[in-house]
């Protein structure tokens, strides 16, 4: 094996060839078939380049050109975990489930390691996020080791669960590709608070497959707060059945590059999907939120509000596609994205995209880009509030407006804390 082959897509393919007999589920033919299929797709497409429409504004070259080793050994010994955001917490270290660090006692349902329960995932895994769907999904499918497997029975109120992902810096670049499978039975409810922290030169490439059954509600709060050395590329596929709700709120603030890609499909009448978030970046960072929403059934509603704050020479992207199928009459769709640029050098690319094939729909979208309002800033300063503090007040107000849509109080508090922490880290930088 030459050194050159170890970088980029070729490096990952080589790794797959070398590891495939040892990966999770290696004795299960269906898993092997899935991985092999994914490898074919990934070999054909590689990492997406900016010539691909959905990646026009986000350059994956720094990922594609790097060489990532896998975290082959289990990290032993003490790991300092962040303060919990919920009583029940499933902890993953470098993408592997750590029951010894998790607190799952008394949970109303089973929160398990996917690697250890792959047998029950047959027919489910890869059904929503198909191996060929996206190159990053193919990469994940080819190399996933573990992930969170939740299967909430009908009618169960699961309360709150935190999914914590931490990495321990092994001192060399590494990649991990968690695969999370989350299923809510009819009428079930769950608030999942996801926290991603970690350090080191790493690629965190999680894929979620989420199925919300009839009348079920999943509230999914995400805090992507890894350090500035980390590449975070996450892809979510969610389906929402009749009368069900999927509520996603993502705070992306920390990694060098964050891609928060969500594919949601409303597949039964009166289903609802809320995708909201706040993404922040400072000098040298890049944040990208890309949503694709399928209104594939009548009388469904969707709400999207995304806020972006950029400082220094940061780059931000928002792409939001809403596809209203011919059958989806009485669709109620709304999308808003707003960006606040704190410097002359910051740049946002914003691309709303509506495709409507039904005739009786209500669908609106809007986008704003601006600097801090000079009148507001002067008003605060004229009251004796120093400039830096006045700016902080206005940025927080801008971001908090997005969080107000979150009704679950524990989650809202955690999200607000994540926003404020980002702003504090900026210090005088903005």
């Amino acid at each position: 094996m030459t050194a050159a082959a170890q970088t980029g897509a070729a490096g990952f393919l080589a790794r797959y060839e070398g590891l495939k007999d040892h990966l999770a589920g290696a004795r299960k033919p269906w898993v092997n078939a899935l991985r092999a299929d994914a490898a074919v797709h990934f070999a054909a497409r590689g990492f997406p380049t900016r010539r691909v429409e959905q990646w026009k504004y986000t350059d994956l070259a720094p990922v594609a050109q790097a060489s990532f080793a896998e975290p082959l050994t289990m990290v032993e010994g003490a790991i300092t975990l962040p303060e919990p955001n919920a009583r029940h917490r499933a902890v993953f270290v470098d993408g592997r489930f750590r029951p010894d660090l998790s607190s799952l006692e008394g949970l109303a349902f089973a929160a398990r390691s996917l690697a250890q329960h792959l047998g029950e995932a047959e027919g489910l895994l890869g059904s929503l996020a198909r191996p060929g769907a996206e190159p990053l999904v193919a990469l994940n499918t080819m190399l996933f080791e573990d992930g969170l497997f939740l299967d909430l029975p009908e009618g169960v109120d699961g309360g709150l669960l935190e999914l914590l992902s931490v990495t321990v810096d092994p001192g060399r670049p590494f990649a991990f590709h968690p695969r999370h499978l989350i299923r809510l039975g009819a009428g079930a409810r769950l608030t999942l608070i996801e926290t991603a922290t970690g350090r080191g030169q790493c690629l965190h490439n999680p894929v979620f497959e989420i199925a919300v059954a009839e009348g079920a509600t999943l509230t999914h709060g995400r805090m992507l707060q890894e350090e500035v050395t980390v590449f975070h590329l996450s892809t979510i596929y969610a389906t929402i059945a009749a009368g069900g709700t999927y509520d996603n709120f993502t705070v992306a603030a920390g990694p060098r590059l964050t891609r928060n890609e969500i594919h949601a499909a409303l597949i039964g009448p009166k289903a609802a999907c809320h995708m909201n978030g706040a993404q922040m970046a400072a000098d040298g960072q890049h944040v990208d939120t890309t949503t694709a929403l399928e209104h594939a059934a009548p009388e469904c509603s969707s709400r999207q509000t995304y806020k972006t704050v950029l400082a220094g020479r940061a780059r931000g992207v928002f792409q939001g596609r809403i596809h209203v199928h011919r059958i989806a009459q009485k669709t109620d769709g709304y999308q808003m994205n707003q960006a606040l640029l704190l410097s002359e050098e910051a740049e946002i690319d914003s691309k709303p995209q509506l495709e409507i094939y039904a005739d009786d729909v209500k669908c609106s979208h809007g986008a704003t880009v601006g600097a801090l309002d000079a009148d507001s800033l002067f008003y605060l300063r004229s009251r004796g509030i120093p400039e830096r503090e006045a700016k902080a007040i206005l940025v927080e107000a801008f971001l908090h407006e997005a969080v107000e849509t979150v009704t679950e109080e524990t989650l809202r508090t955690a999200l607000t804390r994540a926003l404020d922490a980002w702003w504090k880290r900026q210090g005088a930088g903005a």
Partner: protein
Amino acid sequence: MLKIEGLTAEVEGKPILKGIDLEVPTGEVHAIMGPNGSGKSTLSYVLAGREGYEVTGGTVTFNGRDILTMEPEERAAAGLFLAFQYPVELPGVGNATFLRTALNAQRKARGESELDAMQFLKLARERMKVLAMPEDMLKRGVNVGFSGGEKKRNEILQMTLLRPALAILDETDSGLDIDALKIVADGVNAMRGPDFSALVITHYQRLLDYIVPDRVHVLVGGRIVRSGGPELAKELEAQGYAAVQAAA
């Protein structure tokens, strides 16, 4: 107290103030009256330090200090307050948080102890009662959804909390009905005393029936064309600015 000498200023390269001389001694309330476009608001913004209002000549001293080199927040901490003609709405910023942050920023700048939430609330409720403001105005966003009168009252509330040495009231009477006008005037009058001065900028004489000034100045075309006692306001009301300007 406030001493303005030969002040000239421009906005976007256009001269607006063309040589203002004005002195407001400690404990006095002066009114500045003038037609639209005479430079009244420009003067208030120049004094408060707003960006884009460029001073091209002259001096302004406040308690002996040159304020033109100071940042807006430094002027505020030094005791200067501007009640805005058009108070700014700040969605997402709670009024209580805003008021307490402002008060504590000024106290901190002056080396005084900061008020905790309880101390602040007690003080704010007391002052709001005097201004007949409903308590829920503390919980709402700053000026968000406030009526014109509520916004002006919120300005006066800020003044009574911050207790400036000099208050500049920029057309605080505009948009107020007579009851609100009286309440606002009472708020200002309650502050009058040997340590408080005010510059009341207004288009109409009406407000000066309730806040009786020690001196009245007429500003036309960026200059003070006449000064006199409170009776000058009545003369302006009766004869109009043109006649007063012609007589000057």
